[in-house]
C-alpha cells in the first residue's frame, strides 16, 4: 500500500492530478451540499454539458480551452438560475434543454472540424493524464478562491439554503448569494471536467453531500463529512484508476456509490435502533 503510494507520487502527472483533484473535490462537495438541499442538483449536470460544448468551440477556434469555457459556463449558470426562479419554464426542463442543446452543438462542431481528437475525448470521459501544469496552477488558485468565498459567506449560504423566503423577508440579499453559488459551481464544474469528464463531473458535486446527509445531523457536520467523503473517494478512485488503467471519473463515481451505500445502511441501522 505504502509502496503503491510512493510509486504513484513519483510520477509528476500523478502529483498534479492529486493536488488539483483534491482541491476540486473539496469545492465540489461543499457547494454540492447546498445544491442538493436547494433541489438544484441538476444544474451541475447541465453546466457540465454546456462546458463540453464550450470546449468544442474553443478547440474549433484554436483558443485556450478554459479561457473560453469558464465565462460561457458562468453565463449559463446565471441564465439557468434565472430560469429556475422565474418559473415560466419549469427549472428541470430548462436545464434539460440547455444540457442536451449544448451537447448537440458541441458534437456537431467537433465532427465538422477536427473530428474527435484526444483532448475532447478526455473532456468527455476524463483522464488523470490530462492535467497540465497550467491547469494545475489555475485549479489551485480558483479552488482556493472558491473555498475562501464559501467560508466567508457560509452563514448567508446556510440561511439562503434553509429558507430563502425568510432570508429575503428579513433583509438578506438572496439573489446575490444564489448568484454566488451558481458562479462558484460553474467554475468548479469547468475545473473538474478535465479529470472527471463532462459526463461524470456532476457526481463529484452531488454524491458527497447526499452521502453525508444519510447520517449527519447538523449542517456543519454535513459539510465536513461531505468534504471527507469527497476527498477519500477521490484518492481511492484515482488509485484504482492508476492501478487498473480505468477512467478516473468512473472509478471515483464507483467509490462514491459504495460509500453512499455504506452510509445509507449506517443511517438506516441507526434510525432503526431508535424506534
Amino acid at each position, binding site marked *: 500500500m505504502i509502496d503503491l503510494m510512493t510509486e504513484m507520487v513519483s510520477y509528476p502527472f500523478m502529483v498534479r492530478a492529486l493536488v488539483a483533484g483534491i482541491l476540486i473535490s473539496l469545492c465540489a462537495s461543499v457547494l454540492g451540499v447546498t445544491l442538493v*438541499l436547494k433541489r438544484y442538483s441538476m444544474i451541475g449536470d447541465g453546466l457540465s454539458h454546456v462546458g463540453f460544448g464550450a470546449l468544442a468551440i474553443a478547440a474549433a477556434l484554436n483558443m485556450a480551452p478554459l479561457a473560453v469555457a469558464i465565462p460561457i459556463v458562468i453565463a449559463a449558470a446565471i441564465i439557468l438560475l434565472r430560469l429556475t426562479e422565474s418559473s415560466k419554464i419549469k427549472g428541470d426542463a430548462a436545464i434539460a434543454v440547455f444540457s442536451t442543446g449544448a451537447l448537440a452543438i458541441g458534437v456537431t462542431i467537433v465532427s465538422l472540424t477536427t473530428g474527435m481528437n484526444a483532448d475532447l475525448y478526455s473532456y468527455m470521459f476524463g483522464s488523470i493524464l490530462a492535467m497540465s501544469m497550467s491547469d494545475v496552477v489555475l485549479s489551485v488558485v480558483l479552488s482556493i478562491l472558491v473555498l475562501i468565498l464559501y467560508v466567508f459567506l*457560509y*452563514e*448567508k449560504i446556510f440561511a439562503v439554503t434553509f429558507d430563502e*423566503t*425568510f432570508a429575503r*423577508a428579513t433583509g*438578506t440579499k438572496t439573489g446575490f448569494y444564489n448568484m454566488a453559488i451558481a458562479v462558484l459551481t460553474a467554475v468548479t464544474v469547468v475545473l473538474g471536467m478535465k479529470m472527471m469528464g463532462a459526463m461524470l463531473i456532476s457526481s463529484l458535486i452531488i454524491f458527497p453531500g447526499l452521502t453525508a446527509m444519510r447520517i449527519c*445531523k*447538523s449542517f456543519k457536520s454535513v459539510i465536513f463529512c461531505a468534504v471527507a467523503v469527497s476527498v477519500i473517494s477521490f484518492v481511492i478512485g484515482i488509485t484504482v484508476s492508476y492501478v487498473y488503467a480505468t477512467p478516473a471519473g468512473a472509478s471515483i463515481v464507483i467509490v462514491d456509490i459504495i460509500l453512499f451505500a455504506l452510509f445509507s445502511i449506517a443511517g438506516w441501522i441507526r434510525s432503526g435502533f431508535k424506534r
Partner: protein
Amino acid sequence: MALLTCDNVSFAYEDQIVAKQLSFQINEGDYLCIVGENGTGKSTLIKGLLGLKKPYKGTITTADGLRATEIGYVPQQTAAQKDFPASVYEVVLSGCLNSRGLLPGYSKADREKAMKQMQLLGIEELKYKSYRDLSGGQQRRVLLARSLCATKKMLLLDEPMTGLDPVAVAEFYQLLWKLNKNHKITIVMVSHDIREAIEHADYMLHLSHEEYFFGKTEEYKTSNIGRKFWGGLDND
C-alpha cells in the same frame, strides 16, 4: 403609532387580481389575525407586508425604524425544509443574520440572543438535535425562535398552526399571547381557525373574494361578514 399602513392596496399575479383595495393600519403592540377562505390572498398580503411582493395598486408605508431587518417572519412550511439536516441551534442562530451586514460569522451577543429565545420557547434542550427529527410542534417553535432573533418589534406568521395537534396549537397560542403582552411584540398572523383567532386577537382582517372586513375583534363579531362565518360556526 402606526407601524404599517396599507392604503388602497391591491395585489395581482399575471392574470388575476387578488385582495382588492385594502386599507388598514397596524399599530405598535397590536395583535391582528387575518382570516378568510383559501385563495383570498392572505399569503400574498403577508408577502406584500414583508416587501417580497409589490402591490399592484396602492401603497404600503412602514414607520421609520421598521426596516426589513427588523421584521420576524414565520412562513408556511415547505416540504423541502422538513427533512433538512441542520441542528436547532444553527436554524435559530440564522435569524440573527440580518443584523450582521457583510461580516462573516456570528457575534457573542448573537449567540446569547439565540439561547435566550430558545429558553423563552422551551426548546433549549433541543439545541443539538436535528431539525428533521423534531415533531411538527417543535419545528414551529424553532422557526418562531429564529424569527424572534430577527425582530424585537413585529412578527408576521402565515398559518403557523397547520398540521399541529390541538395541544400544540393551544401551547402555540399561549406563546404568542405571552410575546404580545409581555414582550410588546406586534403580531400579524394568518389563521384558518376563526374561533381561535377571535379568542386571541385584538383586531381582525377578514378577506373574501368580494369584500373585506377590518376592525376590532368585538366589532367583527357583530359585523355581517363576521356573523356569517363565526356565527355559522357557533351554531353547529
